[in-house]
């Protein structure tokens, strides 16, 4: 599974308009709806489910990244949105540090193996210092897209 294929065309927000967690999640869900990765009919439910998941435990897993996610029956394949917040977001992260990069992942309800593979590919890259640094330095969506493709082609060092 490739990172550049998971991240939907048109769902890279660099930068995000908001610096507040719930607003950031809303922006990313709306981007996924706008580019057809999710349907407008399910927008409110997806939003509520992602928020509910965050309340059960923050997906701000440390090192300035967060990976909010939801499984939903309306979702056809692994689809993610990426948002960058150069000034940092309070995501109630595990390490109490601000979050600069958010990967929001939608997964179908009945394909746990693919969900785990998508999470693996996301975390494999987010755990690399180089990837996180380049992501923070990306000035626009095109920069992020290039970075995702380089990551898939394993051009980046650890």
């Amino acid at each position, binding site marked *: 599974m490739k990172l550049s294929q998971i991240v939907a065309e048109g769902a890279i927000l660099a930068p995000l308009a908001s610096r507040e967690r719930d607003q950031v999640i809303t922006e990313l869900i709306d981007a996924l709806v706008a580019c057809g990765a999710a349907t407008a009919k399910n927008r409110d439910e997806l939003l509520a489910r992602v928020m509910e998941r965050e309340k059960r435990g923050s997906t701000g897993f440390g090192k300035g990244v967060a990976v909010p*996610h939801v499984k939903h029956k309306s979702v056809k394949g692994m689809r993610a949105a990426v948002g960058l917040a150069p000034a940092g977001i309070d995501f109630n992260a595990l390490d109490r540090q601000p979050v600069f990069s958010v990967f929001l992942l939608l997964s179908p309800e009945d394909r746990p193996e693919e969900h785990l593979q998508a999470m*693996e590919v996301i975390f494999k890259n987010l755990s690399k210092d180089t990837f996180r640094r380049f992501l923070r330095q990306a000035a626009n969506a095109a920069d992020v897209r290039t970075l995702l493709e380089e990551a898939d082609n394993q051009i980046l060092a650890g």
Partner: protein
Amino acid sequence: MSQRATVNVVIRNKLGLHARPAMAFVDLAMSHASAVTVRRGSQEVDGKSIMQMMMLAATKGTELTLIAEGPDAEKACAALKELVDNGFNDE
């Protein structure tokens, strides 16, 4: 005195080692002084790092080896094995 303990486990819950079970594992590992390594085939990750644990992509049926090294290694292995055996109390 430092000990080393290892135990094999199999992921039993339907959804596999997704974020919440991985977090429960890391929390429990962190509550022990011993270093915890999780091995899947030739891949080894730090059992106290949520990011590394997510890189295992361990689906239901996946076999993992837990390795603890430190003053409470036996205790850590036993507690972590129990968590995995109970399917992480995942619904």
